[in-house]
């Protein structure tokens, strides 16, 4: 069964450094999402992406964050200058095409980002 994959599984970085988190969606999926979960807190929506542009972003998703799908396969989340509070588990999720009536979102295993 096809799965969403994410790399790396764990990323440790210094405050102020740039990180890129990668996601490989299920091949025929067209809607892409990033969520994050700070330890002990709820899963929070960051951004949705469709047709090569952002559909919606949360307040968390400020100018330090960006997303792109540079080669038509990988879907990336970039944090330009990481802060301590960016430490979290980041989940990629993808959804198939079809009518926009809340099809199932398939989640990746997550990337644990630790900012020191």
């Amino acid at each position: 069964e096809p799965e969403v994959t994410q790399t790396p599984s764990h990323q440790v970085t210094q405050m102020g450094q740039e990180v890129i988190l990668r996601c490989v969606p299920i091949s025929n999926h067209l809607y892409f999402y990033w969520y994050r979960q700070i330890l002990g807190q709820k899963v929070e929506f960051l951004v949705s992406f469709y047709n090569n542009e952002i559909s919606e972003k949360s307040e968390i998703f400020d100018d330090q964050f960006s997303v792109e799908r540079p080669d038509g396969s990988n879907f990336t989340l970039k944090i330009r200058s990481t802060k301590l509070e960016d430490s979290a588990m980041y989940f990629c999720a993808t959804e198939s095409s079809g009518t926009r009536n809340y099809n199932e979102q398939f989640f990746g295993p997550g990337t644990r980002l630790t900012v020191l």
Partner: protein
Amino acid sequence: AQRVTQPEKLLSVFKGAPVELKCNYSYSGSPELFWYVQYSRQRLQLLLRHISRESIKGFTADLNKGETSFHLKKPFAQEEDSAMYYCASGSGNTGKLIFGQGTTLQVKP
């Protein structure tokens, strides 16, 4: 703002006992509601959604608009049901999901 509330962090029951995981939502429009589950060391996966009105692994959830609730129920819990359960609400046309805090279900033998 749209909000999903799961009042219990932990629910511990014995095998064979009934289970009810509570979820309340606030949304002015017609909500799209889901239950996602995360088993130990596995990824988040969809358990069921209200629009399907289905029973998965013996679990059901009924949307109660009057009480703005979408509680997850199972008449007889099994040990393999032990997991983290998240209630989620969809909004707008962008597919964004708003999650509750999650409830850990622990089924004891």
